[in-house]
């Protein structure tokens, strides 16, 4: 079992985001999280990354309380690809990807051969290799997000957390990186927790879906089971048809109108 959240409550300057929120996230699945804006998706990520502490309740990760891990241990286990990213100095792309190796390196040691090899491998896999010697400040939004993605993969996490990680990418790179994540998930027994805005993209890759609305779990389970027009109507207030698409072998949604 990956994460267990038990009766977690969290409020942000007076407004309740979660109250008695409970959820299990398995360690070896590709889990998608969907829900309307402001439903608490990003706060959920902050809580499981320990960027915020719950006011009450317990979060355990791999059967130990999340709070018992050191920051460095967590950084070796869990990697985040954020939704917004700014890089304030003209670091080269390869330097940014190398930063993913920092949790595995001691303070002063130069990168080892295996670190360099890992960074190179990830840059090839993510298609960043031709950007390697360019300053990140010169890249387009989508390119920069790819670099940030590569940095997270270089961390070799056991748990990869994607916070709308493909939002700025073109369709080719979105599919390419999500396929890569699926491949690494199978090969490395990695868990993935991914927040999506695009429900069809989520449906293509996620084994499980969690639907959150107003700080509570509306549905949780295998994608084919969770993805129902009634649930989409209730949560997003849209009329939608869910069907199985032969072409990409996954459940897909078409929308008619919002109500």
């Amino acid at each position, binding site marked *: 079992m990956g994460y267990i959240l038990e009766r977690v409550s969290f409020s942000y300057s007076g407004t309740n985001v979660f109250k008695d929120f409970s959820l299990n996230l398995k360690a070896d699945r590709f889990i998608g999280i969907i829900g309307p804006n402001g439903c608490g998706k990003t706060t959920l990520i902050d809580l499981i990354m320990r960027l915020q502490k719950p006011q009450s309740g317990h979060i355990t990760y791999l059967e130990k309380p999340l709070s018992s891990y050191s920051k460095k241990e967590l950084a070796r286990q869990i990697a985040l690809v954020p939704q917004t990213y700014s890089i304030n100095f*003209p670091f080269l792309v390869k330097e940014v990807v190398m930063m993913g190796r920092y949790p595995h390196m001691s303070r002063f040691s130069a990168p080892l051969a295996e670190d360099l090899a890992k960074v190179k491998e990830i840059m090839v896999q993510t298609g960043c290799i031709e950007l390697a010697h360019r300053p990140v400040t010169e890249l387009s939004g989508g390119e920069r997000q790819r670099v940030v993605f590569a940095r997270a993969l270089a961390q070799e996490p056991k748990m990869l957390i994607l916070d709308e990680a493909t939002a700025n990418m073109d369709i080719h790179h979105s599919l390419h990186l999500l396929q890569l994540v699926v491949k690494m998930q199978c090969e490395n027994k990695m868990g993935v927790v991914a927040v999506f805005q695009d429900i069809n993209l989520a449906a293509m890759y996620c084994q499980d879906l969690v639907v959150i609305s107003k700080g509570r779990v509306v549905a949780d389970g295998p994608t084919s089971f969770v993805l129902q027009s009634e649930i989409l109507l209730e949560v997003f207030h849209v009329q939608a048809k869910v069907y199985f698409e032969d072409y990409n072998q996954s459940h897909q949604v078409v929308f008619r109108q919002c109500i």
Partner: protein
Amino acid sequence: MGLQFCILTILLAVGAVISTGMGYLNISWKEILRIVMAKFTGNDMLLSQMDPILTTVVVDVRLPRILTSLAVGGGLAICGTVFQAILLNPLADPYTLGVSAGAAFGAALAIILNMSFAGTYSTTLMAFVGAVTTLIIVIYLSANAGGLSSNNLILSGIIVTAILSAGISFLKYLADEQVGIIIFWLMGSFASRTWTDATLISVAVIIGLIIFLVFARDLNLLSLGKRVASSLGVSTGKVTLIMLIVASLLAAACVSVSGIIGFVGLLVPHLMRGLTGPDNLRLLPVTFLAGAILLLIADTITRAILPHEVPIGILTALIGGPFFCYVFRQRQTRRREF
């Protein structure tokens, strides 16, 4: 890092020897090396055929001054690098949090009240106290539940600096004949620094540099934003606070011994970032050396080349400013973003 670091180290060493030889008395580099060797090894035989006045000039007058200028230059430059990295703002410099205004106010107060509780070091000590008090006030003003945000820090620094500047103007207005001393102190000088000054500031700068290097990679990660830095194992709040305090204390120490020397802390990190890239582990040692070289040159010009001593703060701004404009413009035409 290897090559740039070596070249700058050699430049610094050669520059220091040449500078020691320059001045009212011209001393050849061979004589300087012999004097230094003699003092290091305690072997006075090396000095046997030399005019003892040369030894006095080199050991008691020029070396402490030169060493102080090197340490202050290096110190201000690494402080600037660290401030720019924590505040994520290329316009930040060691004085962003009002350390200079605090030091100036403290020094002006000491001068106007003729304080002499610590002998000749009273002004230096009061400057340091003023700088540290300012730092505490600025951090208190900008701290909130979410930790220290860089906008809050910059804003608090500006407000406190504005208040203190008015205070300094008021002190100058009250000062009568001491106003000249205050103005001269404010513009910075390395004249008549002693071995005590040189030793204290060198130790402070070396300790500061070591602490900065320990956190250099954390500073790199902070440039990815607090959330990501935290996910990569950095205790962002703690690191920010430690770096701010150490950098401000070091800047305060520099200002206290030399007065307010502008531009080094802003200019050198920028120039060196263009050379080494923004990786702080490589950048910090190189900015340290470059800052030391810059102030060595500026101090040598005012001490040995110009007919009259010009305050070094004026000189660094007059030389550094236009040079910075040139480099800045060059970069604008080459790159879209700075």
